[in-house]
């Protein structure tokens, strides 16, 4: 059945993938058929109005209620370019579909909503009066009605309303099935978080990532770059058991004091604590040999240098071959702080895919951010994303951070098992990275030069450190 799916006008690229992920979570047909979508006549894909084909009202409701970006899902009773067309459409919508919601025992409410223009109270009332041809028999209840009806219309001139130009105005009338609970966002907003880091993931995005990862109770979710835990908080909210690791002991263990650390961030919201937090290097993960297929999802924001330079074990000079391994004297071992070397984007992504290929269950999901340099217009839209024989990429959603950078949320599904050959190829690559550490860092590829930790680079011919050009992760949406 087709539903009218109205989105919030934000994170445009994330909207359909979210609904698609949630459809997989709630619609148990597992036919692997992609969802069918349509946009209304004359509408651009960036329009808030879409039609989606779902198996039942229950599925539509579950999706809408769990989503962050669906303003509402509606059973469409009619649409038209004029009020007359709308009336025709509503009148010809089958009575047996309408009458259950119009009966005298029920209560209802009609809301008038306009996109891209403001409608006065009188105008709204007028619109409602004009619906008198619908035989409503129930009582009006504005606060807690049994049935919620919506009259929604878009403006006809594409003016300065922030929406993509709509060639022609369109009016929709429908019955609400469900809508997102965005009160989650203020509840979890970073501003109120006790322990914050410069790269903490904002709450809305953390929830979106959890949705892409099909998080639900009983699932085990891992973040190998856990930082302050903000991604796992999103997953824990939806019921997952969580685990995280970070190379930086100050970040993952010490935080900013006894009640300002990763543990307290979970406590603050009454969420179950992670079942595991570790200090570990994702370049040399501490998993026992033979361990595989334990995590249902891996969700993360890897350290790509610009904001949080990735580090790995070994020390710069050591990996360059300038010095031999330094033997740590026995009496210094407990407090010794091992030195680390910069971690290039290519190597970081290689390690992440290898970890995910091994540690995810079949059907498990890897959801992570990948940076894109926008300067080169040709790049935009043509970016080649990482590939791996065990994985299928099912969605990529771009968010523009500045004129120079975007980040793209990638969702990959593990389709094939991690074989001995794949493991061997990864080992060879790992050694190659170690041996050619300097080369990878210095001329690995465009990303590793751009996304090398800020303190390693200055922009050529300019003394301004790259750090000053760091993108704004929050604030710039749409």
């Amino acid at each position, binding site marked *: 059945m087709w539903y009218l799916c109205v989105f919030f006008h934000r994170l445009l690229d994330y909207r359909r993938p979210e609904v698609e992920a949630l459809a997989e979570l709630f619609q148990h047909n597992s036919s692997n058929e992609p969802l069918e979508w349509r946009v209304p006549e004359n509408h651009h894909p960036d329009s808030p109005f879409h039609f989606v084909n779902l198996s039942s009202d229950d599925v539509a409701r579950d999706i809408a209620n769990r989503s962050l970006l669906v303003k509402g899902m509606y059973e469409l009773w009619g649409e038209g370019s004029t009020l007359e067309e709308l009336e025709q459409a509503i009148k010809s919508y089958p009575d047996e579909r309408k009458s259950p919601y119009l009966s005298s025992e029920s209560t209802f409410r009609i809301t008038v909503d306009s996109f891209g223009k403001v409608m006065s109270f009188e105008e709204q009332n007028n619109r409602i009066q004009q619906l008198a041809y619908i035989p409503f028999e129930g009582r009006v209840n504005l606060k807690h009605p049994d049935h919620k009806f919506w009259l929604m219309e878009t403006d006809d001139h594409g003016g300065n309303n922030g929406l993509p130009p709509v060639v022609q105005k369109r009016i929709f009338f429908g019955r609400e099935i469900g809508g997102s609970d965005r009160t989650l966002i203020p509840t979890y907003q970073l501003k109120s978080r006790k322990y914050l880091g410069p790269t903490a993931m904002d709450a809305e995005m953390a929830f979106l990532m959890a949705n892409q990862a099909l998080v639900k109770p009983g*699932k085990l979710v891992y973040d190998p770059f856990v930082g302050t835990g903000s991604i796992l908080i999103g997953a824990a909210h939806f019921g997952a058991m969580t685990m995280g690791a970070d190379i930086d002991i100050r970040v993952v*263990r010490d935080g900013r004091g006894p009640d300002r650390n990763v543990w307290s961030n979970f406590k603050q919201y009454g969420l179950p604590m992670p079942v*595991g937090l*570790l*200090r570990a290097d994702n370049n*040399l993960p501490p*998993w026992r040999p033979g361990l595989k297929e334990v995590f249902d999802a891996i969700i993360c924001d890897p350290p790509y240098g610009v904001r949080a330079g990735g580090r790995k074990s*070994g020390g710069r000079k050591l990996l360059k071959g300038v010095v031999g391994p330094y033997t740590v004297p026995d009496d210094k071992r407990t407090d010794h702080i091992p030195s680390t070397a910069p971690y290039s984007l290519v190597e970081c992504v290689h390690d992440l895919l290898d970890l995910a290929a091994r540690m995810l269950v079949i059907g498990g999901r890897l959801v992570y951010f990948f940076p894109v340099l926008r300067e080169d217009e040709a790049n935009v839209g043509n970016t080649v994303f990482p590939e791996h024989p065990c994985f299928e990429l099912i969605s990529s959603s771009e968010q523009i951070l500045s004129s120079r950078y975007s980040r793209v949320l990638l969702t990959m599904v593990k389709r094939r098992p991690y074989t001995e050959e794949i493991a061997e190829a990864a080992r060879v690559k790992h050694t190659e990275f170690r041996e050619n550490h300097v080369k990878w860092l210095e001329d690995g590829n465009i990303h590793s030069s751009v996304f090398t930790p800020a303190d390693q680079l200055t922009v050529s011919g300019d003394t301004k450190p790259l750090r000053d050009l760091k993108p704004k992760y929050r604030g710039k949406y749409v």
Partner: protein
Amino acid sequence: MRLLTHNMLSSNIKAVANGFPLRIDAEKVIHKEVDLNPDFLRNIFSRIEWRALADAARSLGYAELPEEAEESMLESEEFLGKFHHALLEIHLEEGALVCPETGRKFSVSKGIPNMLLHEDEV
């Protein structure tokens, strides 16, 4: 650190051939309450090295797990309860994990094992 984590970790020092299971030096063990989820336990069961879990639990004072376990035991609620408790509720707050081959200690403080290697171990 819960025993689920312990069951997944090994000493990954370069020259070590057999870094699993890590011995546990316990200084402070506490109980954390976790909601029991039977589906989770049934899914994770086949990934668990049972002997290592039973031994680790015993070394922390919980001797209720059988020496051996097999899939069919997951039918029993009593077994699920014990498995759940051992895997997820026993929490090592302070102490160390000790490499079975070299004796190298990986400290556990504030519940967090420090698995980072020194320069000469990578």
